């Protein structure tokens, strides 16, 4: 028969006696060895009995054995008292973009991205997600798509040493970037791994508009302040978060220029005057605007930045024009697919804290003549220059309708023996409307040397054969970007 002392952790009298036989002499050790008194009642049901049994086993009087430390709360307290108003939807801030109410009215489906609600996809009629996303992708590449990009972090970097600071912080060179031009920026940690990315626009000699990933906004800002305050306090440059100052509406697709042209004043939108990766200040529907020509889709694209309180109105104005041009609105799922077709990485999908610029095929983003930047020294560590590192590749399942699962492991063999190390894993997988088949991105050992090879993704239902390819699977020449 078991004599229970602690009813929650199922500790018996025998357990307490065993603890003493094993050499536990302090009541604190007996407690931890048996876990008596460590449940939610914090010993209120068990302590005295356990103490008395321990006292007997030790042959010491009760007061000498002593009590364990009492923890708060001393009186039973409800969870509700601790939660207070932090319950339900109020537990965490829920951040909404300027297009939110419009999306709700339209029946868009949201997903959580950190604290933000972002539109995931826009089902029409009886569409399921697959159908909606396929349509959004098709229409965007054929005509034009409209997307809310307001959640991405924005940081205004200002001062005579702004370029010098960015030079030391990101992998890229910045001093030669002319006002009116943009560059894709890669950020490493000091260990040499990619932790964030974004497009940086130079407005004037001493003012840059830096963007970050949605989830990285606060982290990148804090990291910048850390370096500016504690390592380089002599640089004349200051940062200000402008994430919420601007609503950002992306317009992407062959008809993108037709959509925005009716509203833009003060900026020559022609291809010659405003080529890919440009930025300019002007007016949009009479409102102050920072206009970027940037693309995360591989199509002709613009991002309209207007002061945030005007965001909802500008969203609707743009939408009317988008509809006229036979376009549509699209959400984050479509955004993911379109960028994957172009081999553009997403921080946190293709990167996991162990991926270097070279692993990701971004060696070109490193300024080779730069004296130093955050993470540079680590890039020459033996492990980071060794052969056999995992590299970003594209994967085309041999069966063009076979969807891969993100996270699935990749092996050479179809039926690897137990203990076979994986060559890598699938980082992103989608149906590609543009290619009429499934696609995926992955990181694979010696990936770039394996283009054309067939590898396997072992799954419970059987191995899936995949061909390794260059990650830029659609429009590899980039002609659609430069229209």
């Amino acid at each position: 028969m078991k004599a229970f002392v602690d009813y929650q952790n199922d500790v018996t009298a025998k357990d307490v006696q065993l603890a003493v036989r094993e050499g536990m002499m302090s009541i604190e050790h007996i407690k931890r060895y048996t876990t008596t008194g460590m449940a939610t009642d914090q010993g209120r049901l068990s302590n005295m009995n356990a103490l008395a049994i321990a006292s007997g086993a030790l042959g010491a009087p009760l007061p000498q054995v002593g009590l364990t430390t009492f923890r708060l709360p001393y009186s039973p307290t409800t969870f509700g008292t601790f939660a207070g108003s932090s319950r339900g939807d109020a537990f965490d801030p829920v951040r909404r973009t300027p297009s939110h109410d419009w999306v709700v009215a339209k029946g868009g489906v949201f997903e959580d991205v950190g604290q933000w609600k972002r539109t995931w996809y826009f089902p029409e009629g009886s569409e399921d997600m697959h159908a909606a996303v396929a349509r959004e992708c098709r229409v965007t590449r054929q005509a034009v798509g409209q997307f809310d990009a307001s959640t991405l972090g924005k940081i205004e970097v200002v001062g005579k040493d702004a370029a010098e600071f960015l030079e030391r912080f990101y992998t890229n060179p910045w001093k030669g970037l002319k006002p009116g031009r943009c560059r894709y920026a890669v950020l490493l940690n000091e260990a040499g791994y990619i932790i964030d990315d974004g497009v940086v626009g130079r407005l004037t000699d001493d003012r840059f508009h830096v963007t970050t990933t949605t989830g990285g906004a606060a982290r990148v800002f804090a990291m910048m302040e850390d370096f500016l305050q504690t390592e380089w306090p002599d640089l004349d440059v200051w940062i200000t978060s402008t994430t919420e100052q601007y609503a950002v509406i992306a317009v992407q697709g062959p008809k993108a220029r037709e959509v925005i042209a009716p509203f833009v004043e003060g900026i020559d939108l022609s291809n010659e005057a405003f080529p890919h990766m440009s930025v300019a200040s002007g007016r949009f529907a009479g409102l102050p605007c920072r206009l970027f020509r940037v693309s995360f889709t591989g199509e002709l694209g613009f991002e309209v930045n207007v002061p945030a309180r005007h965001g909802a109105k500008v969203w609707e104005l743009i939408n009317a024009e988008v509809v006229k041009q036979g376009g549509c609105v699209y959400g984050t799922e479509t955004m993911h697919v379109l960028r994957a077709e172009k081999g553009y990485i997403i921080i946190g999908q293709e990167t996991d804290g162990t991926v270097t610029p070279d692993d990701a095929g971004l060696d070109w983003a490193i300024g080779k003549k730069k004296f130093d930047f955050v993470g540079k020294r680590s890039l020459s560590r033996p492990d980071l220059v060794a052969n056999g590192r995992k590299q970003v590749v594209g994967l085309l399942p041999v069966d063009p309708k076979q969807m891969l699962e993100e996270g699935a492991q990749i092996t050479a063999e179809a039926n690897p023996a137990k203990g076979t190390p994986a060559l890598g894993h699938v980082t992103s997988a989608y149906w590609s409307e543009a290619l009429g088949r499934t696609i995926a991105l992955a990181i694979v050992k010696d990936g770039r040397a394996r283009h054309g090879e067939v590898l396997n993704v072992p799954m419970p239902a059987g191995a899936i054969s995949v061909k390794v390819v260059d990650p830029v699977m659609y429009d590899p020449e980039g002609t659609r970007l430069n229209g």
Partner: protein
Amino acid sequence: MLLISCPYCGVERPETEFRYGGEAHIARPADPSQLNDEEWAQFLYMRTNTRGLYAERWRHAHGCGRFFNAVRDTVSDKFVCTYKAGEPKPDLDALARASQEKDAR
């Protein structure tokens, strides 16, 4: 709630306004290319991790936003003092002795 004294604001504030910043007084090498792998690993990862008085960086993240330094007892979690960035590191041994004398009284 643990209260921390911000040397820039000149007031004590609850710990939730602050972020820990690791060991203090570790300068990033001026020319990292001059360090060998062992030395670079030392800078990246090795910290004194003292049991007792420790000089640490803290940031008043949800206040003035400044980084400052603090001497904190890693055993008792007690803040002995805080001081502005750029000010010299206090003599931790002297502080420890003074603290022991104070406790003894």
